[in-house]
């Protein structure tokens, strides 16, 4: 099968378990793209994540960048479609029926049950980026400061991203 086809199938499968959105998929995308298929290396993967962070738009666009680096424009479009289309179709077909399930015990149980898993996935994504980029002590310090500032102030994340870019340019991270 062509790389574009494989990419589409891999990401379409992932879209069905993307509880917590595309961000929660970072560890798995890394496993598929870097470890299993060797389509990208660690450094490129973290760079693509950084670019997606600095660009406007939904978080899902990191998938577009991965697709682009793996297989050009066709890869970018295939990866994006694979991530967005399957659940969109499911939602389109089922939304009216689902609204009748609101408040049902099993529906609440899934909502409650998904949350701790999503937290684990996002935490794993954060450690994965740090590992793949081989952070030194200065980068870890920046991670800690970012976390503290983001949790304790209302400063827009874009300022933090700009500060990270500047510190990086100065060779401090």
């Amino acid at each position: 099968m062509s790389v574009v086809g494989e990419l589409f199938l891999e990401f379409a499968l992932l879209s069905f378990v993307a509880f917590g959105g595309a961000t929660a998929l970072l560890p798995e995308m890394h496993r598929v793209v870097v470890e299993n298929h060797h389509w990208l290396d660690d450094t490129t993967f973290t760079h693509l994540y950084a670019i997606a962070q600095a660009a406007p738009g939904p978080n899902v666009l990191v998938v577009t960048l991965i697709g682009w680096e793996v297989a050009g424009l066709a890869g970018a479009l295939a990866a994006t479609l694979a991530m967005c289309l399957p659940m969109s179709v499911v939602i389109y077909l089922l939304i009216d029926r689902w609204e009748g399930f609101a408040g049902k015990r099993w529906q609440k149980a899934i909502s409650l049950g998904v949350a701790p898993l999503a937290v684990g996935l996002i935490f794993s994504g954060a450690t994965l980026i740090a590992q793949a980029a081989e952070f030194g002590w200065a980068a870890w310090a920046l991670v800690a400061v970012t976390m503290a500032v983001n949790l304790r102030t209302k400063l827009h994340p874009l300022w933090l991203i700009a500060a990270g870019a500047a510190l990086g340019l100065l060779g401090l991270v």
Partner: protein
Amino acid sequence: MTSPCKKYPRGAACTESQNRPDLRALFLGFSSVGLSGFGGVLPFARRMLVDERKWMTAEEFNTQLGFCQFLPGPNVINLSVIVGKRHRGVAGAIVAPLGLLAGPLVIVLLLALLYDRYGSLPLAQSMLRGIAAVGSGLLFAMAWRMGMAIKDKPLFLPFTGLTVAAIAALRWPMPWVMVVGLALSGGVAYWRLGRK
């Protein structure tokens, strides 16, 4: 206003929200959301849908978002499909997510072209490294905030630990981890809900 409501009898949007956008308005409205959202577009989606254009009430927004968060997939895309369908059927459900993605997609691809050309320069590499560190910090903060929002922490946080162990340490395939994890964690939640 009456005919679309007959078409979607259970759609609260029909009776409560004041405006019904056409396809062009859907595309442009969601484009503005996509292009203004840095680091998560949900707050911008809320501002556009509820405050500015009044396509949904705040209550409708919360309910619909609840559905999107309970389902897998990019939440904002799912939300745009729902809003598009509510107002303009199939065409709306296609046009709304396209609007959300088209602008940012072009920007991201231009950045990709720049990266392909200049990404190997040491300056670009160190800049991206700085951004990646901030990005990682933002993810830790997001995980922390979501973790703190969980009720019944002693009961549910162990599942967070197990997920991290399976995904980050053992590198098990995520589809299986999620299926088993959801069965266990959802099962505990189901049991807990029955006891209240």
